[in-house]
């Protein structure tokens, strides 16, 4: 009986501890993303530390590739607002994250926005998969893939930033 109690205590302690460990990925905010100039090929200092690191971005999903049953999405764009209004200009490249998930996530998770955690990749000057120079170089949006952190949903429920970041004039694409 004693040993059972000890085991119970240890497991619950570990259980409390793990979320703290997992919450480590720093958040990449849309504000931070603005620092990237879509025209230049350099990765700004403020974002260099995050290159190839695990980060979390909160936003809304624009699905690109759905799974067989239209339940899950694997490839999508992450944007800062639900794009509901037509009169808001479209997000500039540095306010878009192209996400490819390792495992598809449920589509209806997006109802109140999602927080995607993954490895950030900011293609540098030698980015090969983009060909049109003025769009690509200095890729402004971040690519995040791998896992989805579910516990963030509770945070989103109460604390989601509802302010729509309005792009500056020079950030506007057209």
């Amino acid at each position, binding site marked *: 009986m004693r040993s059972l109690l000890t085991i119970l205590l240890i497991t619950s302690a570990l259980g409390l501890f793990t979320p703290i460990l997992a919450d480590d990925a720093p958040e990449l905010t849309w504000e931070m993303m603005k620092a990237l100039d879509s025209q230049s090929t350099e990765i700004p200092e403020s974002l260099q530390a995050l290159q190839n690191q695990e980060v979390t971005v909160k936003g809304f999903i*624009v699905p690109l*590739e759905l*799974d067989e049953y239209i339940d899950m999405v694997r490839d999508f764009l992450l944007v800062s607002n639900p794009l509901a209004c037509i009169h808001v200009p*479209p*997000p500039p490249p540095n306010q878009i994250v192209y996400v490819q998930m390792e495992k598809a996530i449920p589509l209806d998770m997006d109802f109140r926005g999602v927080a995607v955690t993954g490895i950030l990749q900011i293609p540098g000057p030698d980015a090969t998969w983009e060909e049109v120079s003025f*769009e690509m170089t200095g890729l402004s949006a971040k690519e995040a893939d791998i896992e989805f952190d579910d516990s963030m949903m509770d945070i989103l429920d109460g604390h989601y930033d509802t302010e729509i970041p309005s792009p500056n004039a020079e950030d506007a694409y*057209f």
Partner: protein
Amino acid sequence: MSLLNLVLKSLASRKLITALLILSIGLSSSLLIGVQKIKQSAKQSFSQSISGTDLIVGARSGDIQLLMYSVFRQGQAVANMSWVSVESIRDFPQVDWLVPISLGDSHKGYPVLATTRGYFDHYRYAQKKALSLKQGRVFSSPFEIVLGAELAKTLNYNLGDSLYLSHGVSHGHSHLHKSKFTVVGILASTATPVDKTVHIPLEGMTALHAEDETEFCTHSKLGDQGLRPSSVTACLLGLKSKFSIFSVQRRINDWPDEALMAIIPGVSLARLWSSMRTIDSAFFIITILVTIIAFIGLLLVLFMSLQARQRELAILRTLGAHPSQLFLMLSLESLIITGTGVLLGLGFMSGLGQVLGPILEERLGLILSLSTFSSTELYLALAIIGVGGVTSLIPAALAYRKGKGEGFISL
């Protein structure tokens, strides 16, 4: 004789009731599973039909409409988009490839899709699978045809066969075009609307609708100025960068010269399905209710049989049956009835699927696979059998309790 045998004989002695119960559970489970199956199959059919296309452009209408007629050949385009606009869009720096498509004609009820050779390179389905030819090649002159797999099989067409196309999409042979087309390629099966489509070059369609059809002949070439279409139904676009999707979309939506719209296929598909969700839920609730009703029937019968078989259970008790064995007997009864009912339901659904499948496919333009069983259906079937087991719990527990109190005294 085992307990199982005893239960089977007991059920056999009440043939009519047992049969009715099995029937009611069978029907309700085939309804429940069948509706789920059609829904999943339809979803699958929708989502598999388009992949790897960043934008679809057409005349301004509803986004779901554009999706439906450009991908599923269902419904009609409100208007066409001019070739001038097509060329302008193709010239956008962000555009990697552009495939124009035109719909409107048919052949024996099957839709005709006029497009460019680029269609066969760029069109993707089912999570980025490309089209491939089972036989022959892609068209290289205006009056050549590439057939979808299903169509070729059903109408028994082979390479080299000649076809005539009808104007409009009605079934009859109203206004047959004079020009003769030759089959040069047959595509491999895709389980999408592609399988039931006749593909011709855009130039061929222009020739069909020219004032004087006989003006053009087999010596015409693709790219001939005279055969350039003046308008098309829609365009599929591939962009060089995903990040330009929104800006290109906005630019097309705001196009000053013509009322156009550009949709992101993934978004429109998700929107289509979310608008269906209420119907979907409603159907689901109805089928669940029907199943519950069937199980209430089962519960009723179990209770009533308990009453009638009191003496029988008392006899078994004195012969040495433990109350838990009486419990087991009633549970087995319920499981046997439910299990048989579900099997019957599955069989019924499969049979019905064979019959209804082709009709639904034609009406909705989808490819459904109603006669095969996926894991979802099996889980549902097991769940229903599980409910059967649970339903018997109360009567079986009652049998247990009564059994404990039985003795010689009740005989």
